[in-house]
């Protein structure tokens, strides 16, 4: 009986869910390229737009210089950004319906 009462009283923790989603999807923006780890961000995508199909050297998340093809890296970052942000929106919309 007390279990049932507890379940009825239990509220969905929207604040914790919002924080947790941010952590989850920010971590999914991280990926490997040429031995380095990079994070897809709007700033990085914009920066990579300055270059064409050329090799450039960027610092990865460990501050290690890594030679990358700018176009390939931009494609991967854009793909990841769109996929994860859309998934984030879908999940957030679903969680908002919880009581």
């Amino acid at each position, binding site marked *: 009986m007390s279990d049932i009462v507890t379940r009825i009283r*239990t509220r969905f923790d929207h604040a914790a869910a919002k924080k947790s989603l941010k952590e989850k999807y920010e971590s999914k923006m991280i990926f*490997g390229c040429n031995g380095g780890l990079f994070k897809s961000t709007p700033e990085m995508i914009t920066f990579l737009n300055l270059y064409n199909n050329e090799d450039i050297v960027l610092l990865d998340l460990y501050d290690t210089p890594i030679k990358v093809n700018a176009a390939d890296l931009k494609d991967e970052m854009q793909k990841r950004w769109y996929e994860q942000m859309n998934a984030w929106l879908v999940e957030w919309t679903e969680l908002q319906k919880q009581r």
Partner: protein
Amino acid sequence: MKGVLIYAFNNSSIDYFRQAVWCADRVNRYLDLPVTIVTDELSIKNRKTTHSIIISVASSGGHRVYNPSVSNKSDIWYNGNRFQSYDLSPYEQTIVLDSDYVVSSDQLLTLYDTSIQVTAMKNVYDITGRDGFTPYRSISDSRGLHHYWATVLYFNRSQLAQDFFFMMDMIKKNYSHYSNIYRFRTTPFRNDFAVSIALTTVYGHSPDSVPVIPWRMANVFNDVGLTAIDDDTFELAYTTGVDKMPKKIITNGQDFHFMNKFDLAKIYEN
């Protein structure tokens, strides 16, 4: 070759072997990687598994209380074998996982794309938002050494990784000496502390130069209840505030470290 190593030595409270098999099944499913379980015959109890097995001799780190919010009952804790990882792992690139790490995504595959030789988790967050892990930021108030988590370790075949596990072994053998230096409790032996000291040492005693896993680990404290909605989705139940308001949160496709071994058992036993 890439793979995952999990340690599992049973005591009278927890069937770590069963827990490890459950964890390994999830690694197969979400990471598509082979798993080797390091265990002993007492833990296996003649059970069959599709995962590779390495038999070792359980090494105790002392006694631990599993769920202090419920009871002060303690049990012997066989957590002292992790330093063997470099010698035991059959893989070129290895992730060592705690068996209570719930793999629900392919996030860990990212680690195999790095050229880092050995790394661990440093930054964690409390998935319930209650900030229960604030005291875990350093292993010692007075010495300020960062707390690194042994829950997820990554290493490749390299001198640095070998040195790291050699150092872990040395710390384990001289644990009271290190506990005096860094001012932490002598018992039980904590892999987190050995990892923290060893990582900091092999990277030149400079905490800022330790290349940690670049995302925060979702941690769930041992007072949280767990219900599986489906393979990917879990409901976490907990209370907040002095009036113990019951709350819940749902995770989907998200890895997390779940410390309530008893609730985890309800899931893998069903």
